[in-house]
């Protein structure tokens, strides 16, 4: 297919989609409407389960089975990317000495922000049930925060700080623990991922029962998955070379 035919096909399809979308949008409830059926159902359900952050309540309580599926997507993608990026038979893995230099200012910011970002990430995961945040968001903050060591320091320093094997285990253990907690809920409450922990006072860190625990578990899994994913890309760029280069 030439570029021109492809553009024409897109113009036709895109045009139809655009017209259909405009028609659909003009028939939708007005932007900013006060009528939100899902909101009116999910907020009382969340308050009933003492969860101050309703988004977390939706993710880890009301639609927790969906989150299990989402977690499985994440782990499947990490496995897929790691399998695609591992060195093939005609490649070797050897870390090439690093060239270039890091600006002193970059180094300083990297080292100062590294602990700050890690603490922030832990805070976001730990307060997933009470304040904005949760396992997914905090996990990404933690995993990318670790890589400040690469920005400010070197790849070998990063390699020492994060042994990839333990993050691989964390990724798998997180996914398994989520399912296990679901089964515990099934045994004790009769519903998969049902809450079997006591509730506390709304707004306090341990008030939310399993929501906070599941959030923490997802945090562990996301950190593991992201670090494994990023490390495969790093290895590909910095270490994997064709064998005949030697």
């Amino acid at each position: 297919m030439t570029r021109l035919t492809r553009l024409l096909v897109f113009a036709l399809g895109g045009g139809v989609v655009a017209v259909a979308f405009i028609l659909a949008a003009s028939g939708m409830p007005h932007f900013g409407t006060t009528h939100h059926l899902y909101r009116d159902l999910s907020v009382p359900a969340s308050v009933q389960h003492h969860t101050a952050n309703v988004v977390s309540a939706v993710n880890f309580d009301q639609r927790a089975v969906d989150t299990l599926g989402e977690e499985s997507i994440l782990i499947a993608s990490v496995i897929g990317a790691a399998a695609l990026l591992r060195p093939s038979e005609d490649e070797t893995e050897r870390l090439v000495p690093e060239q270039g230099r890091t600006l002193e200012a970059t180094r300083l910011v990297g080292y100062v922000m590294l602990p700050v970002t890690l603490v922030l990430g832990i805070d976001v995961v730990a307060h997933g049930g009470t304040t904005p945040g949760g396992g997914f968001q905090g996990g990404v903050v933690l995993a990318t925060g670790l890589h400040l060591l690469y920005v400010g320091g070197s790849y070998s320093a990063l390699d020492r700080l994060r042994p990839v094997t333990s993050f691989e285990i964390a990724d798998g253990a997180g996914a398994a623990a989520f399912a296990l907690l679901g089964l515990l809920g099934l045994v004790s409450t009769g519903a998969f991922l049902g809450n079997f922990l006591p509730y506390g006072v709304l707004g306090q860190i341990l008030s939310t029962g399993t929501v906070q625990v599941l959030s923490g578990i997802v945090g562990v899994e996301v950190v593991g998955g992201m670090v494994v994913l990023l490390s495969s890309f790093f290895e590909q760029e910095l270490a994997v070379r064709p064998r005949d280069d030697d």
Partner: protein
Amino acid sequence: MHVYAYLVSGYLILAGSYGIVRSRHLVHAVVCLSVAQAGTYVLLISIGYQHGGATAPVFGSTTKPNTHAVDPVVQAMTLTDIVVSATVSALLLALAIQINKRQGTADPDELATLRG
């Protein structure tokens, strides 16, 4: 004006798709896909928005639980959307690296032949 936010999301989806069609590099195509997916975030969030100072659906001692808040369900769906989008991008970028290694090019137009 009440459809403006929805139209922005439709525009982003189409603009991203147009970028994929015109793409001359696989990494560029992956970035265009992210733009198209950003349109779905805008759509979800704008469906849940409420005029008149509605708060975020996070309550505590200062904001007592009430239903004068934006829709938390679409926000949770947006979160799912972002996670799926990130994983898809990661897989596609890994594929792009492999294609570039095997075929020596990342231009989709030069990948016309299939090889086993």
